[in-house]
C-alpha cells in the first residue's frame, strides 16, 4: 500500500515537473501575447497574468484541457475590453477541466466569460463588470457556462449584465456559491439545468435576484433538482434594463426569487426582503409553444424555513404582466409568496398528485397569494386564495450536488 502511494506521488511530481508556468505582464502587445500563450498551453500548465491592466480589441479564447488561467487578484489583474472591436465575448472557453481565477473582465461588448460544452469548469474569485452602471448596451451575461458539466462558480462578483450576472444554461452538476450579483437584470439564473446548488450568495440591487427558469425548444429542457439556500435575495430595486424580446425583460423590478417551470426545486434558509414587487414567485411559462416535450408548469417545489421581510411595497406594474395582474388581484396588498396556480387541466380539476404538490412550510409571517384558476374562469367567484396553511407539508430534502 505504501509502495503504491509512493508510485502515485512520483507520478504527480513528474506531472508537475513537466508542466510549465507562464507569467505575463501588461504590454502594448497583450492581445497577441496572451492569446498566443493561451493557444500554446498544454494540459497541466498555468498561465498567470501579473498585476496590472490589460487592454484588448478582440476577444480571447482558451481551448486547452486541464489548465489554470489566473490573475493576481479580483481587483489587481484587470482585463479591459472597453475598446473591443471584434469577438462576441471577452473570454471564451471551449475545453474541459479549466480553472479561471483571480482576475476581472470589464466592459466586454458581448458576454464577459462564456464557457461552451465544458466537462468541468471552475471560476473562482473572478469579477465581471460593466462599469457604466446598468445600461441596455451592456453585455448580456457576466458568467455564462452553457451545455457544461461540473460547473463551479465560487467567490465571484457580477455587476451590470443586461441579462444575467451569473447564468448557467443547459448544464448539469452545478455549484454557485459565495458570490455577489448586483445591478444586473437577473442576479443569478439557472436555466434548463439539472442538479444545481445555489448557496451563500448575495443577490441585491438587481431587477430580479435569483431565477430558476425552464424554456421550450431547446436541446436540454425540463430543468430539475435545484436547491437555493442560505442566500440573501434582498433589495432588488433596479429598473429592468434588458433589451426587449428577452425572457428576463418580463421580470418586474423588485423580484426576490422566481421559479418558472422546472421540477424539484427546494428554496430554504434564505433571507428574502426589500423586493418592491414580490419576494418570491412560482409561475408557469407564459407563452404559447408547440413543443410537445416541454412542461410549462412548475412541480414538486418546496419553500421552507426562509426569512421573509418587507416586500411588495413598490410594484413595478409597467414591466411584463406579472406585477400588474398581481397588483389588481391583491387589491394592492401584495404577498411575499405568489403562485399563479396554473396547472394542467386535469390537475386544475382534481388537484396535484401528492408528490408534485407545492409545499410551503415554516416561513415565519410570510404572506401568500394564489389564484384558483377554475374560479378565475367563472363569474361571481373571487379567485384569490391567501391561506398559506393549505400548503404545509413534510419536506423531502433534495440531495446535495457533488462535483466530480
Amino acid at each position, binding site marked *: 500500500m505504501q509502495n503504491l502511494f509512493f508510485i502515485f506521488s512520483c507520478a504527480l511530481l513528474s506531472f508537475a515537473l513537466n508542466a510549465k508556468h507562464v507569467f505575463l505582464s501588461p504590454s502594448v502587445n497583450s492581445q497577441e501575447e496572451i492569446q498566443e500563450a493561451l493557444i500554446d498551453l498544454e494540459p497541466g500548465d498555468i498561465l498567470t497574468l501579473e498585476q496590472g491592466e490589460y487592454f484588448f480589441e478582440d476577444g480571447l479564447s482558451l481551448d486547452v484541457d486541464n489548465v489554470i488561467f489566473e490573475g493576481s487578484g479580483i481587483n489587481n489583474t484587470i482585463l479591459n475590453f472597453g475598446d473591443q472591436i471584434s469577438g462576441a465575448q471577452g473570454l471564451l472557453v471551449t475545453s474541459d477541466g479549466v480553472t479561471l481565477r483571480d482576475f476581472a473582465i470589464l466592459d466586454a461588448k458581448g458576454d464577459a466569460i462564456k464557457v461552451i460544452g465544458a466537462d468541468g469548469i471552475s471560476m473562482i474569485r473572478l469579477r465581471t463588470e460593466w462599469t457604466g452602471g446598468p445600461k441596455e448596451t451592456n*453585455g*448580456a451575461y457576466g458568467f455564462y457556462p452553457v451545455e457544461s458539466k461540473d460547473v463551479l462558480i465560487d467567490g465571484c462578483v457580477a455587476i451590470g449584465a*443586461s441579462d444575467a450576472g451569473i447564468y448557467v444554461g443547459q448544464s448539469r452538476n452545478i455549484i454557485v456559491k459565495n458570490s455577489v450579483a448586483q445591478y444586473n437584470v437577473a442576479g443569478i439564473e439557472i436555466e434548463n439545468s439539472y442538479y444545481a446548488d445555489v448557496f451563500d450568495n448575495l443577490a441585491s440591487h438587481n431587477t430580479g435576484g435569483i431565477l430558476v427558469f425552464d424554456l421550450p425548444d431547446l436541446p436540454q429542457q425540463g430543468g430539475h433538482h435545484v436547491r437555493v439556500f442560505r442566500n440573501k435575495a434582498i433589495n432588488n430595486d433596479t429598473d429592468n434594463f434588458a433589451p426587449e424580446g428577452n425572457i428576463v425583460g418580463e421580470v418586474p423590478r423588485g423580484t426576490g426569487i422566481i421559479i418558472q417551470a422546472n421540477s424539484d426545486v427546494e428554496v430554504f434558509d434564505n433571507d428574502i426582503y426589500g423586493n418592491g414587487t414580490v419576494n418570491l414567485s412560482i409561475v408557469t411559462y407564459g407563452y404559447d409553444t408547440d413543443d410537445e416535450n416541454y412542461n410549462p408548469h412548475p412541480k414538486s417545489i418546496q419553500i421552507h424555513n426562509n426569512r421573509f421581510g418587507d416586500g411588495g411595497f413598490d410594484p413595478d406594474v409597467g414591466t411584463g404582466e406579472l406585477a400588474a395582474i398581481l397588483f389588481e388581484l391583491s387589491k394592492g396588498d401584495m404577498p411575499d409568496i405568489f403562485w399563479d396556480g396554473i396547472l394542467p387541466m386535469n390537475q386544475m380539476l382534481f388537484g396535484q398528485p401528492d408528490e408534485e404538490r407545492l409545499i410551503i412550510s415554516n416561513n415565519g409571517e410570510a404572506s401568500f397569494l394564489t389564484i384558483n384558476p377554475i374560479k378565475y374562469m367563472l363569474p361571481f367567484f373571487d379567485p384569490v386564495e391567501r391561506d398559506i396553511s393549505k400548503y404545509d407539508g413534510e419536506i423531502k430534502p433534495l440531495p446535495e450536488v457533488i462535483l466530480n
Partner: protein
Amino acid sequence: MINSLYAVDNIVILQDKFPKNLSDFSFFEDTQAQIPSKGVIPYELISSLFSDYSYKQRWVYVPKGKKAIFNQDEVFDFPVGSALIKTFYYPLDERDLSLGKKLMETRLLLRKTHGWEAVSYAWNETQDEAIIKKAGKTILNEWIDFKGEIQSVRYRVPNKNQCKECHTTNDTLTPIGPKARNLNKVFDYQDESVNQLTKWMKVAYIDEIDIELNTPVNWEDKRHSLDARVKSYLDINCGHCHSSTGGANSTGLYLDLTENRPTHRGIYKKPVATGRGSGGHEFSISPGNPEESILLYRMISTDPGVMMPESGRSLSHKEAIEMIREWINKMET
C-alpha cells in the same frame, strides 16, 4: 524526377509542429503566384461563406494512392495526409482583376492521423511568403469596388481557436465546404471545363458516385427561387454552427439545409440567451416584418456584441441583407 521537384511535402503535413512558412508545405510550385504543385487541384463551392467581401481560392490535396469517401449529407471523409487550402485576397480594383491582388492569408485544414487541424498563414508585406499566425492578426486593407468606390476593411486573420468555433461538429474539428452537394458544378480547369465531382473521380480522389444530388443553389443566381437562394445562403453562412450538432446548438435555432421545423428555423422563435443581440425584437424571424426580425438585425449589425456570425466578418453583407429582407417581407404572416 522533374515532377517531384514540385511535389507536396507529405511529411510536413503530418508532423506535430506546424512549419513557420506556407512554402514549407510545397503546396505551390510558385507560392507567390499561387500556382499549385502536382496533385493540388483547385475547386469552388456553389455558395460560399461571406468573409468581408474577400475573394477566395481553394485547392484540395489527397495523397497519391488514397481516396476520400463519399457521405450523402456530410463532407467527404478525406484520408490521412489530405489538405484543404484556401487563400483569401482582395483584388486591387474589382472593375479590372488583371490589375492584381493583395493576398491576406492562406488557411489550411490538415488531415492528421488523429483528426483535422486548422492553421492560418498571413501574407507578408512583400507578398512573397505567408507566415504562421497562431494568435491571429489584424490587417487593414483598402480596395476599389465594382462601382469604383474605395472600400476599407479591418480584416481579421482568425486564431487557431476561432477556426474551431465554426469548424466543429459534435465537438470535432471538421471541414465545412467540401460536401459533394456543394461541389456539384462545372469548373473551368485550364485543360477542360467539367463537373468538379467528375474531375475528382477522374483523378481518383474519390470513387465513382452518382451525382444526382440534392444540390444547393448559388444564392446569387436569381434564376432560382428566393426561398431556395435564402436556404442556401443560410446553410453555408450559419448552418455550420446553427445546427443540432454545431457550436450554436444550445440556441435551438437551426439554419442548416436539413432542418424543416418552423420554430427551429426561426419562425416566431423567441430568443433564449440573446441579450442585446435581440435588438428589442421578439422573434428570430417575424414573418412580414424584416425590421422586427432578430436574424436580419444581427446580419446588419457590425457591433461585436450583436453581429452574426460572431467572427469572420466586420462589414455588413449588403446584397444578402437585401435578399433576406425581401424574403421575410414576402412571408405569410
